[in-house]
């Protein structure tokens, strides 16, 4: 008797879900969520997702977009970005310039005047001391902040950062020589070691946000936990359940135009499929889409209406190691660049999301040149011609070409596509060498690669961030080992040229040099592809968004029925 009961129970537990699964209709029929009682006003709660737990939300130490999404709501800096990526004054009364006396004639001294009404969420006034403290903390050797190097133009900054091995007295002395000074409560003065016209853009970035010395001294590492995490921005961090979710509520004491949202909830679903399922189950208002499913989403009758796409400031390219034969041959590199069908790449490998790239600096950034790089447009005959000019009229005589990449599902597709293209268009065989992610990164950073895939996203919207770092001789992120003294000279000039028109002209010339020498073969500009519920209104997308689309202008978003 008992065993029969056991049998029946056990079988029921197994048969029931299977039966249900078979009985339910297949396909993407998204039945509308159970209707909420229609209230007269829609709760202004936006629910979005981060793809994981933020490593740190300390503005000085943060470096990933996930972290920026949170930081940008709770803190605000002296300057910020408009939607067209021009600068706007935020905590500062106006953008310093030579004409208003904010920048000295030699371009080295910047004076920021703060608005008097800016307050922290606990009511205290934001002063220039808060900025001085924050920048000096950013440059402190013990904090080891990853973005500290961006602020090395500040006189004394680099030396202070490098003083880890010195004793306390020397360190304190070096700290006091860092040329950031709160002249009075509402005036901040910064002196640079050499002129750097893009310094204002760097001051709009999050590592220079003001911080509260009293809070950080009191709570130490715990200062980033609510309720200690006090900022001067439109939102406050009210809840953080680690690895699970974050809740930001509108700051009732906000000194500026209050946000239209009352709450911003961030979940931490790491799996893209689970995130999409949550979106379909009405648990999220915005969601990314699992890579590779973009075409299916575009074909779906219901959710295809909820797609939001916009271009990022990100370019992907193949980088050659120009010191390794046969890639030391510029004609060969050009032949390879011309032999790849970028349109097919975007269509097949990226599912139609993104734009083919013929030059390095992406559209949306000053310095983008739509006419540059046309000579590398896909052309099989030309590619073969270039190959002959390179000294390989017979493609079978080419030495073995190897391609290294980080072994992820997406990269495998790219590698196979490349292999197919070279075989079909040039008759060249490509050996694929997948590697583990970090191992690959180290491999490339040590310039052991021959030919590798890579991408670059803007830290700030200026060619200053896109050219010297990557193509200057022995520059930190130059792994093509490209070295052109003419480029270096031009870059040096452009970096400190105070006339903006002239400066951009110089960078345009510099980019032309790089494209002609082809240390890289650009492939595509990335585009964001997300789903947004029709109830979410007022999203303003920019190229400087954090991980959640529209988070740079979150105050403008509101929800309707």
């Amino acid at each position, binding site marked *: *008797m008992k*065993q029969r009961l*056991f*049998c029946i129970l*056990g*079988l029921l*537990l*197994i048969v029931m*879900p299977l039966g*249900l*699964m078979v009985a*339910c*209709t297949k396909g993407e*029929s*998204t039945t509308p*969520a159970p209707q909420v009682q229609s209230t007269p006003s829609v709760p202004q709660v936006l629910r979005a997702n981060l793809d994981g*737990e933020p*490593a*740190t939300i*300390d503005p000085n130490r943060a470096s990933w977009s996930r972290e920026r999404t949170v930081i940008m709501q709770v803190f605000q800096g002296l300057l910020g970005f408009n939607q067209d990526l021009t600068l706007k004054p935020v905590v500062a009364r106006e953008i310093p310039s030579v004409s208003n006396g904010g920048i000295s004639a030699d371009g080295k001294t910047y004076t920021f005047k703060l608005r008097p009404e800016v307050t922290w969420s606990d009511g205290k006034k934001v002063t220039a001391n808060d900025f001085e403290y924050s920048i000096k903390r950013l440059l402190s*050797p013990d904090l*080891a*902040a990853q973005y*500290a*190097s961006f602020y*090395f133009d500040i006189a004394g900054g680099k030396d202070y*950062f*490098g003083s*880890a091995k010195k004793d306390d007295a020397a360190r304190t002395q070096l700290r006091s020589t860092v040329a950031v000074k709160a002249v009075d409560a509402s005036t901040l003065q910064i002196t640079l070691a050499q002129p750097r016209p893009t310094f204002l853009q760097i001051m709009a970035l999050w590592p220079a946000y003001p911080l509260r010395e009293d809070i950080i001294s009191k709570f130490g*590492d*715990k200062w*980033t936990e609510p309720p200690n995490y006090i900022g001067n921005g439109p939102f406050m961090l009210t809840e953080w359940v*680690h*690895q*699970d*979710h974050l809740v930001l509520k509108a700051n009732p004491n906000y000194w500026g135009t209050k946000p239209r949202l009352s709450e911003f909830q961030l*979940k*931490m*679903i*790491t*799996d893209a499929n*689970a995130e999409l*399922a*949550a979106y*379909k*189950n*009405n*648990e999220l208002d915005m969601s990314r889409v699992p890579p590779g499913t973009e075409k299916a989403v575009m074909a779906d009758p219901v959710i295809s209406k909820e797609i939001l796409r916009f271009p990022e400031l990100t370019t992907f390219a193949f980088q050659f190691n120009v010191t390794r034969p046969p890639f030391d041959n510029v004609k060969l590199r050009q032949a390879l660049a011309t032999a790849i069908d970028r349109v097919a790449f975007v269509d097949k490998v990226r599912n139609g999301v993104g734009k083919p790239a013929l030059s390095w600096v992406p559209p949306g950034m000053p310095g983008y040149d739509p006419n540059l790089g046309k000579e590398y447009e896909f052309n099989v005959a030309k590619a073969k011609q270039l190959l002959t000019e390179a000294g390989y009229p017979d493609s079978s005589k080419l030495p073995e070409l190897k391609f290294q990449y980080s072994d992820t599902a997406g990269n495998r597709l790219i590698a196979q596509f490349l292999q197919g293209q070279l075989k079909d268009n040039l008759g060249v065989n490509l050996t694929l060498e997948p590697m583990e*992610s*970090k*191992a*690959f*990164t*180290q491999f490339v*950073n040590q310039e052991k690669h021959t030919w590798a895939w890579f991408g*670059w*996203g803007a830290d700030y919207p200026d060619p200053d961030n896109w050219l010297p770092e990557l193509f200057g001789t022995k520059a*930190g*992120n130059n*792994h093509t080992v490209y070295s052109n003294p003419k480029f270096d000279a031009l870059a040096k000039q452009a970096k400190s040229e105070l006339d903006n028109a002239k400066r951009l002209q110089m960078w345009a010339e510099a980019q032309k040099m790089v494209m002609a020498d082809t240390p890289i073969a650009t492939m595509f500009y990335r585009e964001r592809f997300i789903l947004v519920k029709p109830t979410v209104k007022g999203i303003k997308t920019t190229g400087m968004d954090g991980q959640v689309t529209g988070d740079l202008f979150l105050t403008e978003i509101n929800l309707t029925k």
Partner: protein
Amino acid sequence: MLWLIPVLFVVAFITFSLMHLVPGGPWDQEKQLAPQVVENLNRKYNLDKPFIVQFGNFLWNAVRGDLGVSYSYQDKGVTQILLSGLPKTAGLGVTAFLIAIIIGIPLGIAAALKQNSTVDYISVFFSTLFANIPGFVIGILFIILFSVTLHVLPTGGWGSIKQVIMPAVALAALPAAYIARVTRASMLEVKHQDYIRTAQAKGLASRVIIIRHMLRNALIPVMTIAGPELAALVTGSFIIESLFSIPGIGRLFVQGVFARDYGLIMGTILFYAFAVALVNLIVDILYAVVDPRIRYE
């Protein structure tokens, strides 16, 4: 219990060595950091000290309960991360284990007692089926069915009963299948033993025979596999936890390895080693309870 210490030491040493030998370090990123930044980071986390000093520091701190700091979660201690994630992972693991036992053992018993009947065939079919469908697939199917289509269960997270059901069942599928198979096989073996024939000849009720004589003997092999299964479930499944966004420790180890987060890797490895050793110890003790032939000095 004393043998636990050398075991943990060896595990720690091997992991520590491998971790530092593997190419790629915690600061290797596509957008390479400035060399001064890397230098300061290495100094901050003592990565510029010789290997023996680093290992020594780690052991010294571990013994006092401080498993170090995570590089991926910069302000948190590893011990704290493990302690906050453990209840969730363990909760999920134990729930899945109980489901696996409640389904697996009765199914196996029923199949063995009614060998070659319909019940037996269905039981074998289902245990083979669920032993081969990956938990990830079952999980996704559940989400599509119960969340996206029927809207009766949330897609993930942790805290309510509704959120436990899908991950626990998805996680329990494989162990349930496995336990059913082993129970069936072991019951069959016991069923044909002489002492069972004796008990039947003596005229004992079948219920008494099954429970008092067959089960106790048949369950010994089941316990052998159930122990490690429980250890595996408690240490967490990376895939299920990622899919259902469960803030436990299952995800941490794999994420730590990919990020070369030395602190997190060492902490989780030690924890795993300890959990497995502990569970094996419990299983050994249970043997002594269940099988009178086994006695320890």
